């Protein structure tokens, strides 16, 4: 037996359209065609009344309610009266319930595709708004940080230690792995070419300077952006979704002060240490290649490295990493605080935090390169 209900339309005189309903009405069988009813209502001579008749109904579910509701809607739009007296009481009540709360005016959404000019305009406005928001945030954070000096800020010291733990010691394994491999890769790339000139020993210079000046800080920054920046965004984003941030605001605690500042402080304290550590491990990675492949002795390699790099290089790298730490923490927290109200928005916030963090690091790296060059460092 088919699970799609039967509908028979007959005209009773000029003014009445009779809709006879029978059979089994199940959602699984698909919905009955509403178009035939529509045509019948619209065809001349226009009926003034639509009356339902119920034949043998073997069983029904929402599909029949949908049908009755839809027909009533069609009739209503065209000013045709509907007579539902013949319907079973329960069915009539269900249809009435569906009509109990009329649609509010202006609620339904209009999905007109905007023109390309519209879209460009909207994008431009959104970009400006986003930049303004970032600048605002930066300004607020600067003001909040100034309050730090006389010790007027309110946050929990425990939080700072928690974030230090998360972004310092717990990051060591991944920083070790990546830095060691970067050292190895740099040494490998240099080894082949330098050996042709019998200048293998300069692998130590090459690895040392590259790691200590740039790569240590940049690689640590990128690791931390992916690891900690994303975590900050997800934490704050979830707090936004669950209204925890609103709860802080209502008791007079500012998110920037209570939530963002401890995270920035933790990263600013940890990044230089992680960078120093990454420098050390990176040089070790280079040494492993030099000793294993190029027959350079351990002491020679270390001496050559110490000759090549200066304290200025070291401090330059460490200074940069501190700035990267600020950028990572701020972009993570900014994206977290800008998070929407849904679970997917939290994912977007985390993604966006990593992208913003890495872009900021690379941009800062470029600026540092120019500034250091001009200063002759």
């Amino acid at each position, binding site marked *: 037996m088919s699970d799609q209900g039967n509908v028979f339309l007959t005209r009773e005189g000029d003014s009445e359209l009779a809709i006879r309903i029978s059979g089994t009405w199940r*959602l*699984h069988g*698909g*919905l009955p065609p509403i178009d035939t009813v529509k045509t019948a209502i619209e065809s001349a001579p226009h009926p003034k009344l639509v009356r339902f008749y119920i034949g043998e*109904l073997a*069983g*029904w*579910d*929402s*599909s029949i*309610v*949908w049908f009755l*509701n*839809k027909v009533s809607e069609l009739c209503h739009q065209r000013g045709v009266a509907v007579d539902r007296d013949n319907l*079973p*009481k*329960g*069915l009539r*009540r*269900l249809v009435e*319930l*569906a*009509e*109990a*709360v*009329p*649609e*509010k005016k202006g*609620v*339904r*959404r209009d*999905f007109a595709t905007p023109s390309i000019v519209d879209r460009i305009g909207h994008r431009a406005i959104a970009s400006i708004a986003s930049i303004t928001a970032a600048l605002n945030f930066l300004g607020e954070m600067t003001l909040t940080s100034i309050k730090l000096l006389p010790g007027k800020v309110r946050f929990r010291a425990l939080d700072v230690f928690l974030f230090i733990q998360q972004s310092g010691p717990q990051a060591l394994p991944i920083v070790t792995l990546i830095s060691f491999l970067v050292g190895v890769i740099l040494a490998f790339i240099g080894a082949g070419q330098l050996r042709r000139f019998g200048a293998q020993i300069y692998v130590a210079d090459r690895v040392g300077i590259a790691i200590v000046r740039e790569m240590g800080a940049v690689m640590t920054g990128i690791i931390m952006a992916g690891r900690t920046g994303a975590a900050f965004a997800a934490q704050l984003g979830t707090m936004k*979704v669950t209204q925890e941030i609103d709860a802080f605001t209502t008791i007079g605690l500012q998110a920037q002060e209570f939530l963002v500042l401890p995270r920035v402080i933790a990263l600013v304290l940890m990044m230089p240490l992680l960078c120093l550590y990454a420098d050390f491990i990176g040089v070790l990675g280079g040494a492993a290649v030099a000793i294993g492949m190029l027959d350079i002795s351990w002491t020679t390699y270390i001496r050559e490295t110490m000759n090549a790099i200066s304290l200025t290089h070291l401090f330059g790298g460490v200074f940069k990493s501190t700035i990267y730490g600020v950028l990572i923490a701020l972009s993570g927290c900014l994206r977290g605080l800008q998070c*929407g*109200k*849904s*679970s*997917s*928005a939290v994912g977007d916030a985390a993604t966006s935090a990593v992208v913003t963090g890495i872009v900021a690091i690379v941009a800062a790296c470029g600026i540092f390169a120019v500034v250091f060059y001009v200063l002759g460092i």
Partner: protein
Amino acid sequence: MPTDAKNKKVHITVSHLTMAFDSFVLMRDLNFTIDCGDVFIIMGGSGCGKSTLLRHLIGLNEPAEGEIFYGDENFTKADPGKRREVMSRMGVLFQSGALWSSMSLAENVGLPLGQYTDLRPAEVREIASLKLALVGLKGFEDYYPSEISGGMQKRAGLARAMALDPEILMLDEPSAGLDPITARLLDDLILEIRDNLRATIVVVTHELASIFRIAGNCVFLDAESATMIAHGDPKELLAHSQDSRVRRFLSGGEEKRQ
């Protein structure tokens, strides 16, 4: 379709159920049955384990002891495939609505329809619209859960629970956070669903007005003694219960503690 025929077949049987989190026993030795086509209320004070009992019935929590039967089927001991089949005949409204936040209301209601019926996408949307109209949300099809109020989210959750015309509807505090008129409409809807779609409805609530309007049967959980202390028609219980705690609860705290 007959609307008044009282079908007294047992739909759900809870047998010696003990609910526990590790060593903490929340409720012990619960025994009751839920009839087909009945509106069954789980009630009790805050934190006594009403929602947890509902989660046990749905299969989201495992009983520490005891069993739950659907018809003659042992749900607790059933294999995962059988469990999924029983669960597919259930519609659940969670306490917070639990709408999928990345989907519009029409998509929320339409997802089960798209997964479990052969309806075409346009038809799925039509039915989703109807279900939303039934809970008074006509026109809100393209809104996202974060764009509507808490009470509306709750109603949209109910529309999703009803999407497949389930045999069993589990509702966790359906009228909490609704204005009295909307709550009344919701009660009417629950009764219409029971009568017309012949669903068995299990409701967790402590809204007295709603309890007396819709309940056919109920179980009363008591946190202090960690078990059920009453089972039956709430109107009967109010009038004739031997237990003062039950009478006190059902009279809205008016009867003095003895």
